[in-house]
């Protein structure tokens, strides 16, 4: 979706150095295709979770606690009919079906990843444009960003989470967004500073283009490609940090099925029942891997100058 949006925009982009056909380059890159397909797959799993033979992920069943993967169970409905079902990934200490919880967990992870990416890119873009363009505010803004960046991301997120009573989805999102913003601000500011020196921007200033129009028409298009790349990496790191917070027991409340929560649940009995940690762990790792591959590939396709450096 993002690639399509970019495609329609790119002919108008002023930089001119972009090779023809971002779409073509991206498709040729196997990492992008594999990454994108897997992310779509996980998204589909999350959306279609109710149709994939899952139970209510919050349903507690004291009689069926700590079952190994593959255990069969016969369920009797109120009218007496019996249905057999298999706990594909086993059950946890409360008898909840790990398969169902893992599938539903995809929803929370992707929701957090995308939300955090969008918010931090948007806020970072606005602040970065201000820092890059309003010179007298630049020093002040950048010192605050330096301070924020001096605090390791997970610690900052933990500090923010600790301020809210019973962290909810929103608190966790805010906690992950705050450490990501300075990185976007720095990126946007550096782009603005280099674009300001371009002859076409000087020309635009000379003919009296208002600042707002200048930013929208000339500066903004140049930030699109790097921000898409950056946003992809933020998405991956947000999913990771959410999982860490949940795993440590300070993220989203434990009844909500998230990959981190399922693993936190499995910690105490890990030696006997490792499945509680392994199934969500594999999903988590593969999802982050896919998003990172997508990001790497998009960087190669969208930002050839940067791609050469790494």
């Amino acid at each position, binding site marked *: 979706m993002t690639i399509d949006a970019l495609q329609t925009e790119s002919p108008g982009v002023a930089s001119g150095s972009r090779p023809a056909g971002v779409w073509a380059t991206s498709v040729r890159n196997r990492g992008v295709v594999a990454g994108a397909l897997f992310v779509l797959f996980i998204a589909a799993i999350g959306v279609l979770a109710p149709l994939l033979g899952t139970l209510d992920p919050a349903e507690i069943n004291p009689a069926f606690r700590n079952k190994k993967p593959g255990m069969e169970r016969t369920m009797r409905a109120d009218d007496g009919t019996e249905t057999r079902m298999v706990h594909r990934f086993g059950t946890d200490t409360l008898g909840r079906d790990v398969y169902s919880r893992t599938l539903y967990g995809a929803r929370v992870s992707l929701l957090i990843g995308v939300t955090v990416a969008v918010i931090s890119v948007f806020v970072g873009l606005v602040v970065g444009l201000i820092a890059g363009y309003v010179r007298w505010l630049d020093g002040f803004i950048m010192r605050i960003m330096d301070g924020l960046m*001096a605090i*390791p991301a*997970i*610690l900052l997120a933990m*500090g923010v989470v600790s*301020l809210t*009573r019973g962290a909810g989805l929103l608190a966790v999102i805010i906690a992950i967004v705050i450490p990501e913003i300075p990185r976007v601000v720095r990126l946007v500011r550096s782009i603005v500073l280099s674009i300001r020196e371009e002859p076409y921007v000087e020309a635009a200033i000379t003919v009296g283009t208002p600042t707002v129009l200048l930013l929208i028409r000339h500066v903004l298009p140049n930030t699109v490609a790097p921000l898409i790349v950056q946003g992809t990496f933020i998405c991956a790191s947000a999913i990771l940090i959410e999982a860490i917070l949940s795993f*440590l027991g300070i993220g989203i409340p434990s009844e909500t099925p998230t990959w981190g929560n399922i693993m936190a649940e499995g910690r105490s009995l890990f030696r006997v029942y490792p499945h509680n940690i392994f199934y969500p*762990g594999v999903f988590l*790792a593969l999802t982050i891997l896919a998003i990172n591959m997508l990001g790497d590939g998009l960087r190669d396709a969208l930002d050839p100058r940067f791609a050469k450096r790494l």
Partner: protein
Amino acid sequence: MLGYILRRLAATIPVMLIVAVLVFLMLRLTPSDPAAIIAGDNANTEQVEDIRRRLGLDQPILTQFVIWMSEILRGNLGESFFFKKQVVELIADRIEPTLSLALFTILIAILVAVPLGTLAAYRHGTWIDRFVMGFSVLGFSVPVFVVGYLLIYVFAIELNWLPVQGYQRFSTGVGGWAQRLILPSLTLSVIYVALIARITRTSVLEVMNEDYIRAARAKGQTEGKVLVRHALANAAVPIVTVIGLGIALLIGGVVVTESVYTIPGLGRLTVDAVLARDYPTIQAVILLFSLVYVIINLLVDLAYTFFDPRIRY
């Protein structure tokens, strides 16, 4: 050189001051009442008021900051609500495990990643290169705790080679201390190895086409010496930079790793403090870790002249 060191040292003061302001404001700017959060759901108004007074939250914000800051500069980090101990003592008590874990990790990471990255650059385009690159992408993606449990499962439970969890103080015996640090530091080093190997490969690859590499080979220098003395030496600056920046990842990883392996270090302390909403401890730990991060990066900056004598300050 001395002038530069002093100037760089001075430049870290505003950064740390801003960190202090942010840490201070964090608690005061919350939409909810911090005193009420600390008191918990069962507290009555009187208890909340008592906590508010004890924290000095009833005074003007500027006064609060001045008092707080001057206490910190005098080395008084306050008293922990939860542990009922001076935060300074609490931290001093927890430093050894974290420091041991961090040092082990950095050592493993550098010893593994730099040769691996150099080899990948040297054998550019071969399966070794692809393996190293693949590992570094994977290392970034697999969360620390997943790596941790995987290693516990394989080496401690299935193979029974190493203890599952726990920590043993250095003073009770080097053997037990080291033995319990192997799995945690291997776990923690994965992401660090990924980071360093990747940058080593890139920067060695960049210098491999330089004239002086060709000259060294032309005069009959062995390939090993060409790689170490000519290529790696010239590629050192970005590698050292990344090792410094990676400390942030390391600190985040410490928090998680200590929880996985139940190591009573600063990371575990941080998690406990957040769970208990023990703000004096949370603030102190954030300040301490940020200070360490800033200082290590200062040292990295100063080390540039050592790795690249062309850089003069």
